[in-house]
């Protein structure tokens, strides 16, 4: 087995660590001196007489460590090796570029990026808002703020993952473009609407995707224009600095209905968002075409409200409406809109970005709440359904596969044990399910954490990334900001990065062990340790 410890450009810090470790070996050996400087051979206790050698070509540029069979020189178990190859990204603050195209906290970001670079982070994720770039008028793009950020990122030597966001965000208060909001005021039907008539103004309804509601253009056309403008403006960065583009697929960028509208904390499973004009007319048409015109008058009447427990009314209970023929009718329609929305956006993007060699991604939600209920109501209200208990994600994954799009799955930091038992939630099993679905159709998965801090997050992330089967090769940590750099959190993050980057601590320990076998140790070890030695 020959392991080359260099050559892989994404494990820079790791290699720095290696260099140190190897030195530890060399330092520990007494044979260094007289011999040829190109080869140092020595024995170490822990390797059980197996030969360990470091072969250095005399050219100072390259060096290979050759490890003879089975030696735990680096604990190169498949797991840890996999872990070390996971690329780590960190998200920039959502308000990195303000809605007047200023770069916010430029100084902090610059310092932060340098810190991350030194830490060995591969790149950063930049949320790019439609509402900032195309703020004033249709087709009038101002990329200056984001360009400035890209330039900083490039200078610091990090990679950039651009997230094109076609949604707005309450926090930090970036809405849809002004001109779109104006249209929305006149024509409220463009927004998702719940059965109380409340609109979700941070994202356009899936039902208008192909309706020319935006000054005579369809949202998909506007989306294409946006992508193309992005591609041409950032062409210098494509492929070298920009190594990934994420397409916003819905609320908060995730492919789902805004089933909770704004407040995720509400205890229920969310509500169906099918009450805007366009949705209702689509539903009506669908009902008529399937011969049940009465079913097309509105959404389910017996679905629980936002703050009601999902099993408190009959829709989601076992044997409830969701399992009825009506339920199948409605949910199939509701979910098909989601699926086709994903397909539209991803097709538009993959044709717009074809040939630039930068992978596209889309993000799914991790709807783990209530997923221990048989109906898994959070998934249903968010638009994930499949009849007869089949895999609810299969259709979506298929679309990702078709468009050779990578899938971002958030919530990699969530563990079952930290979920409140009342929420009947199991993020771990849902995650496992999603991974399997993706693997089946060879869709590559990237990971993200949930944006709110949770206990045991880093351990859980490492666990998830370790799983070589899932093949997660990229993880984006959300998100930079005051909390991120607070001493406590940043320290934890540093440890996390090192855990990823250092294959396994054991190899470090070995170095230390060997070191102590030598006659010569440096200063710093002191009398008390001698006492107990």
């Amino acid at each position, binding site marked *: 087995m020959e392991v080359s410890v260099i050559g892989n450009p994404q494990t820079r810090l790791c290699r*720095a660590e290696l260099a140190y470790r190897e030195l530890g070996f060399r330092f520990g050996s007494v044979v260094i*001196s007289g011999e040829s400087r190109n080869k140092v051979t020595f024995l170490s206790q822990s390797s059980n007489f197996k030969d360990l050698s470091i072969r250095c070509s005399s050219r100072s540029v390259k060096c290979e460590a050759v490890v003879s069979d089975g030696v735990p020189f680096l604990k190169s178990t498949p797991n840890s090796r996999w872990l070390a190859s996971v690329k780590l990204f960190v998200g920039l603050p959502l308000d990195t570029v303000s809605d007047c195209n200023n770069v916010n906290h430029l100084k902090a970001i610059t310092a932060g990026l340098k810190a991350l670079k030194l830490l060995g982070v591969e790149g950063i994720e930049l949320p790019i808002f439609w509402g900032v770039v195309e703020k004033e008028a249709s087709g009038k793009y101002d990329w200056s703020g984001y360009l400035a950020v890209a330039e900083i990122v490039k200078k610091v030597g990090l990679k950039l993952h651009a997230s094109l966001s076609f949604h707005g965000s309450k926090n930090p208060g970036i809405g849809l473009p002004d001109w779109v909001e104006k249209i929305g005021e006149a024509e409220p039907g463009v927004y998702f609407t719940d059965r109380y008539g409340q609109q979700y103004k941070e994202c356009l309804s899936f039902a208008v995707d192909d309706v020319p509601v935006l000054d005579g253009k369809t949202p998909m056309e506007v989306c294409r224009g946006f992508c193309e403008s992005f591609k041409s403006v950032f062409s210098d960065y494509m492929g070298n600095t920009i190594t990934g583009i994420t397409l916003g697929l819905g609320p908060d960028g995730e492919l789902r209905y805004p089933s909770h509208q704004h407040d995720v904390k509400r205890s229920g499973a969310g509500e169906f968002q099918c009450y805007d004009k366009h949705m209702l007319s689509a539903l009506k048409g669908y009902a008529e075409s399937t011969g049940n015109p009465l079913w097309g008058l509105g959404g389910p009447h017996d679905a629980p409200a936002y703050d009601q427990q999902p099993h408190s009314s009959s829709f989601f209970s076992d044997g409830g409406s969701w399992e009825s023929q009506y339920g199948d009718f409605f949910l199939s329609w509701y979910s098909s809109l989601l699926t086709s929305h994903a397909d539209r956006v991803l097709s538009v993007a993959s044709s717009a970005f074809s040939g630039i060699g930068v992978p596209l991604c889309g993000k799914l939600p991790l709807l783990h709440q209530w997923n221990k209920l048989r109906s898994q109501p959070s998934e249903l209200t968010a638009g994930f359904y499949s009849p007869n208990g089949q895999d609810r994600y299969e259709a979506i994954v298929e679309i990702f596969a078709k468009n050779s799009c990578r899938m971002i799955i958030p919530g990699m930091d969530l563990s079952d044990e930290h979920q409140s038992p009342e929420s009947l939630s199991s993020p771990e099993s849902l995650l496992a399910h999603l991974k399997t679905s993706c693997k089946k159709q060879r869709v590559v998965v990237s990971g993200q954490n949930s944006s709110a801090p949770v206990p045991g997050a880093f351990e859980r992330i490492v666990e998830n990334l370790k799983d070589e089967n899932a093949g997660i090769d990229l993880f984006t940590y959300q998100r930079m900001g005051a909390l991120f750099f607070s001493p406590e959190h940043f320290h934890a993050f540093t440890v996390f990065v090192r855990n990823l980057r250092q294959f396994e601590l054991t190899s470090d320990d070995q170095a230390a062990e060997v070191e102590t076998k030598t006659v010569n140790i440096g200063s710093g070890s002191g009398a008390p340790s001698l006492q107990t030695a």
Partner: protein
Amino acid sequence: MSTVPIESLLHHSHLRHSSRTYRGTRSFSPCSLNLRSRFTSSNKQLVLNSSIGSATSALGFRSSNSVAVRASSSDTAVVETSQSESDDVVFKENFPVQRIDKAEGKIYVRLKQVKENDWELSVGCSIPGKWILHWGVSYVGDTGSEWDQPPEDMRPPGSFAIKDYAIETPLEKLSEGDFEVTINLNLESSVAALNFVLKDEETGAWYQHKGRDFKVPLVDDVPDNGNLIGAKKGFGAIGQLSNIPLKQEKSGAEVEKESNSSSDSTIERKGLQEFYEEMPISKRVADDNSVSVTARKCPETSKNIVSIETDLPGDVTVHWGVCKNGSKRWEIPSEPYPEETLLFKNKALRTRLQRKDDGTGSFGLFSLDGKLEGLCFVLKLNENTWLNYRGEDFYVPFLTSSSSPVETEAAQVSEHTPKTDKEVSASGFTDEIITEIRNLAIDISHHKNQKTNVKEVQENILQEIEKLAAEAYSIFRSTTPTFTEESILESEDEKPEIKISSGTGSGFEILCQGFNWESHKSGRWYLELQEKAKELASLGFTVLWLPPPTESVSPEGYMPKDLYNLNSRYGTIDELKDTVRKFHKVGIKVLGDAVLNHRCAHFKNQNGVWNLFGGRLNWDDRAVVADDPHFQGRGNKSSGDNFHAAPNIDHSQDFVRKDIKEWLCWMREEVGYDGWRLDFVRGFWGGYVKDYMDASKPYFAVGEYWDSLSYTYGEMDYNQDAHRQRIVDWINATSGAAGAFDVTTKGILHAALQKCEYWRLSDPKGKPPGVVGWWPSRAVTFIENHDTGSTQGHWRFPEGKEMQGYAYILTHPGTPAVFFDHIFSDYHSEIASLLSLRNRQKLHCRSEVNIDKSERDVYAAIIDDKVAMKIGPGHYEPPNGSKNWSVAVEGRDYKVWESS
């Protein structure tokens, strides 16, 4: 300082490869050259020292009158001055390099029989140094690996004891040049083995044997852990040491032997034989040299001319390559090469530097294509000695105004605001570090004998990361208002239930400082205080702060020694426990005064410095921070400020933290303390405090973070945000697990009351100007304590205005603390009324303040819409709205109303 390259230029002059053109007047101006070089180096320093860096390096540089230095093809050096044009020195750096000389030699151990039972053990070393034998013995019947002090008669003259387990004896120089110490062994004693390590005081390095102590067995049954010297078995390892794998398994014979001897209790010395062992050792001696590199751009030929100069002695070969296309890979440039250049295996070039005529070093000049991005090199001194720069290849970037991102940027930003250009030029610095990392990773072949350097680089990088993160944090935090709105947010969140947290207690706490600076004098303070328990409870206090309970070098208790000895000048441990019980009975929680920053030592070390501790926590000097020279600690650098009167504890040590946590838990358990007042928390990182709070789970905790407010020309500044920010930062570092005394509020009250400047009591946002305005729930407001007032009076509250102070803190949010002396004074009844008002109206640490007036002579505020107050001589009446205000307490220059 940079080396000024004038001299080298003169020497370089005969080298070929240089620009063939020159222009301008030929004038030799060492003066201006010198100036410039200083300028460069200070720039460099600036960039290195601040993570932000400074664009002035690029900007200022360009605009200054600069001196171009160029070597010409003629045999003279040309130094040109140009007034208006930009300077073409693109890189200039003086790299310090450390050449490690390895001295090789041996350690020997000799056991010799002098007389029948008198033996002599000599330990020697052939390398010069300040050698100390650090040794102890094991006695017959000892198990484990602990050392004991040897009997007095074994100790050679000049020995001194280290605590109770070791002796240090210096080695003496023998005539033949070796260093040696001889120990007389009397075998009639029950010494079973002699343990030692060698220490070199010059370098601070310890020399062990196979990672363990050297162990010379004097009886047969000394267990062999592989570190025996002169034993009949295991000889194979000696002399070859670490390159032989050490097998821990014992051979069958050994095991047998052990089991035999363990059944045999008599001392077996039959096997003792004379022996002589030698072990090779090497010692590293570092010599500091420097390499100065200057790169210039020759505008006419657009070549880069690099001069490398060093004061390294002997032949120095530059092993080099060039970088293209943004990669740091070494490539071979096209010819021509400098003289004495060899192509090395098609991978690098080797150029031997010219010796300087005066023998002070060598130099060389390299002329390279202008399109190249940089020059990488390492220095080779001989076959086995290579030098690099802190574990990296030396890298000389050729930055020019057209190719350099840094300079381009600098040029651009100069048109913009000066604020942004700082940012950008800093990236140049990051580039350097990134280059370092990159090279570190790519190339390890030059890291021979430079482990320490690699470590250094890593440490530097880590420090840099920390610095950058801290910077990012401070900006992010200040741009996102996390604290200013806390009062509103929290009160919304937490109104429904009273949540106990160590930072706030119930939120309705009122603190009483239960002692003053004189309290220790009676010797029975605890008993005296007990008698006041009922009274304090009826006044409305909920928390009592007791003086530091531990044995202390100073009678007041703030110089603790043995933390587990709770007999102090305030009373015995039993009296303390009884006092705590009595207060618990009347419903008052009790805080212990925990002094964690420093601790007085029990013993002196070998240098006579008090830094070794005794008692149950018998820490040694590793528990003492390293950056206070008075105490010669061997711990890490302090994570805070140092208190100079006693050894500062190094809280970064795991064992220290473990012990402190145990101690705090013990105090909770044993004494019954409910929480802590933490002394001098400026001295260590708040994160450790969080750790301690998590472990000891106090009901309430408050830290003393006392530093100076800001003054301009003796006048206190209106804006004390920086001051309160430091306190808030500390609280934040504890994750809010502890509150902090609101020193800011006290300071501002001083100024406001003393000079009738009540306008100070509202910050620009209309909030209280102290910590209480930013993070009320963690602010413990006070006007006086045992340090500021009492008989010390370090910072006494304006006399006669104390009640105004109390009218402020007892009506405002935050957790108020009342000083003992004030309670039992003429103010008693007024304070009692205020306390009862606070409790009656349920004002709490997150109550909302609306400042109604803050003028020259009056400050007025309404708290939670139910209490109105004013201080100052000016007039104020609460607004006559829907509320019916009635006067609750009134006194000199203050008035408090409550709504009924």
